[in-house]
């Protein structure tokens, strides 16, 4: 009796909401993948096809070759990976300084870091454009890497200082007693412990650069230098919504993010927990 009630409860309050939430989340992704493998004519056909009856990779070929996703994908990877590397190095070091040292103006510095997040990005476009133009960096991935790094650094620094604050000082002191220098103890003692935090930071940064559209479009004047989000937006003209290629492009854009999350998931949950505790 008791058993069956607890089973009902479990179904009602655990499995049912979970199933609903899962369906809610997964449906758009399923539909995108479904559309990506359909022939153009089948996409809007009634009755709806829940599975492509005659699956095709034609849409992927169109997106990859005709629309130029091969190039956009490469550009996005270059920008994403470079930004992640720079952000990790800089935010680990500055996060360390913020959490371990006491210095004058630390609080106002933190406040300033936060305040930079409040500036609407659209307002910065023309000034940024003029600056990068005078540096000869328009249509150069470096302009995006620099901007994305600057945008991400404040948040990731605060994130990292939280992680570092969680690691007991004793560990570093013990290392110092054993004769390790500051940098050695950072590298040998702190870095392995910080791995979840670094992964979390890297994932956040990568996803941001992977999805960012406005700056990527504005700071680039060459077809061959556009990134993926700009490429995706080509599929959504007033007169030419190419659902199949759009869906295929979205799936292509999704793949790295999914792989990244699958790999980083464990670290990510640990990492976020650490940051909150900090």
């Amino acid at each position: 009796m008791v058993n069956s009630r607890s089973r009902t409860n479990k179904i009602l309050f655990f499995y049912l909401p979970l199933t609903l939430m899962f369906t809610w989340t997964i449906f758009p992704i399923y539909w995108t993948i479904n559309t990506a493998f359909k022939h153009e004519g089948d996409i809007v056909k009634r009755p709806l096809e829940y599975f492509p009856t005659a699956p095709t990779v034609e849409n992927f070929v169109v997106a990859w070759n005709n629309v130029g996703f091969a190039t956009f994908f490469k550009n996005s990877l270059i920008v994403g990976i470079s930004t992640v590397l720079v952000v990790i190095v800089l935010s680990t070091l500055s996060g360390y300084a913020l959490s371990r040292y006491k210095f004058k103006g630390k609080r106002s510095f933190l406040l300033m870091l936060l305040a930079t997040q409040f500036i609407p990005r659209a307002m910065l476009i023309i000034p940024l454009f003029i600056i990068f133009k005078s540096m000869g960096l328009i249509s150069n991935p470096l302009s995006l890497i620099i901007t994305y790094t600057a945008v991400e650094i404040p948040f990731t620094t605060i994130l990292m200082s939280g992680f570092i604050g969680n690691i007991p000082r004793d560990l570093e002191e013990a290392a110092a007693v054993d004769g390790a220098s500051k940098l050695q103890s950072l590298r040998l003692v702190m870095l392995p412990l910080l791995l979840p935090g670094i992964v979390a930071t890297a994932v956040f940064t990568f996803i941001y650069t992977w999805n960012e559209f406005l700056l990527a479009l504005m700071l680039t004047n060459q077809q061959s230098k556009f990134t993926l989000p700009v490429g995706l937006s080509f599929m959504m003209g007033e007169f030419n919504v190419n659902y199949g290629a759009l869906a295929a492009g979205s799936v292509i854009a999704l793949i790295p993010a999914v792989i990244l999350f699958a790999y980083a998931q464990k670290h990510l949950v640990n990492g976020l927990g650490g940051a909150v505790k900090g």
Partner: protein
Amino acid sequence: MKNLLKISLLLMLVAGGILAGCGSKDDGGKTADGKTKITFWDENAGPQRTPIWEKLIADFEEANPDIDVDYVGLPKDSSKSKLDTAIAADDMPDVGSVQTSWLPEFSIREALLPLDDYLADSELNDLINEGAVTFNKDVVRDGKLYGIPYTQNLDVIWIRSDWFKEAGLEAPDTWDEFFTAVNEMTADGRYGYTIRGGAGGSFQLQRLMFAYSGLENYFDDNGKSTINDPKHVEFLEKYFDLYKKNTPKSDITNDYKEMIAGFDTGVVAMVHHNIGSYGEHSKAFEPDQFEAIPLPKTEDGRYVAEGGNTINMSIFKSTKNPDEAWKFVEFINSAESQSYWNEQVGQIPTNADVLDMDWIKDSAHIKTAFEVYDNPQTVLYKPPFYLPDYRSILDNTVDAGTQKVMSGESTVQEFLDEWAKAVEDSEAKYNDAMK
């Protein structure tokens, strides 16, 4: 540890060096092999139009081996802001595909090169549709020509001809017939019509209103807007009365995609858009299942179309190679290129020599559009493209107002009064600034 630091610093430097290597340098518009390089920005790039441009550019480069055209495609929704940034930062392309509604603003910002003299000396002079060229001059303050129209569009109503035939109904010719048809086609889980209640709906609404009233001007002589003219009120009251009764409930958030999908999936019998969506419909239907009809005639039997429904080839003032840029503009506007472009896209060419080509005679929707533009009785009304906030009024005030009327929060009269006030204020501000 020092090694690690050194290595990471070195890596960053190397990466920076490599990337900086691909930076653009000011080369005076010359490529490495001495060719003249011009950049061309396409304001509506995508898998459909980009290949057309690439082919035309390849043809142009073959005919002009000393000129190299660098194509940059821009997504339609962001191309205006991209051009705005480029003008503000003085980093414009040589040639651009520019919508007519942008001409007044770009000319005030002195971004474009006047093309009157170029056109006067060109073979194109008598070939390009005079109405469109005159409109381009009328719409800018200094009366100069800032763009050569290479394609025109026209609002039409797409109807399911097979359903009309089944029901024994004729395609509507007048507004009364239109409203009757909407009513009669609403049956068996089908809707007679679909309203664009979401983004972009304001532009279509305005064209319908003027098509109903037959008014030519947006303002009367006293600076009062004709938007809240009793005729417009009368029309919108009938029009929004269709909502939910004869149209899907979701119409209140309809934008282009949903609206067209409703038609193409066989949910609605009629949809108001322009001939540009022909490609979408032809993917969904057999040729005898659908057709384009002009917007219904006014009470006194005239067609009304919005002026300036064209896209132009414009040259930007900062170009270092205006003559090469003009060569490209001229090439795109030649009968051959215009014919290719417009046939692929399914729009109306402006070059008179194209009009006799076979593909035009064979495509019913283009012919329909011609009949409207060719009809001497047709009224071309003039929207105030020159108002800097014309677009934002339509996007923000009118789109939002449409939804308020559809949801019953305000009346048609209140909505049109608000719209009229917004454009009147803007007109007054503009006149003050230009004094």
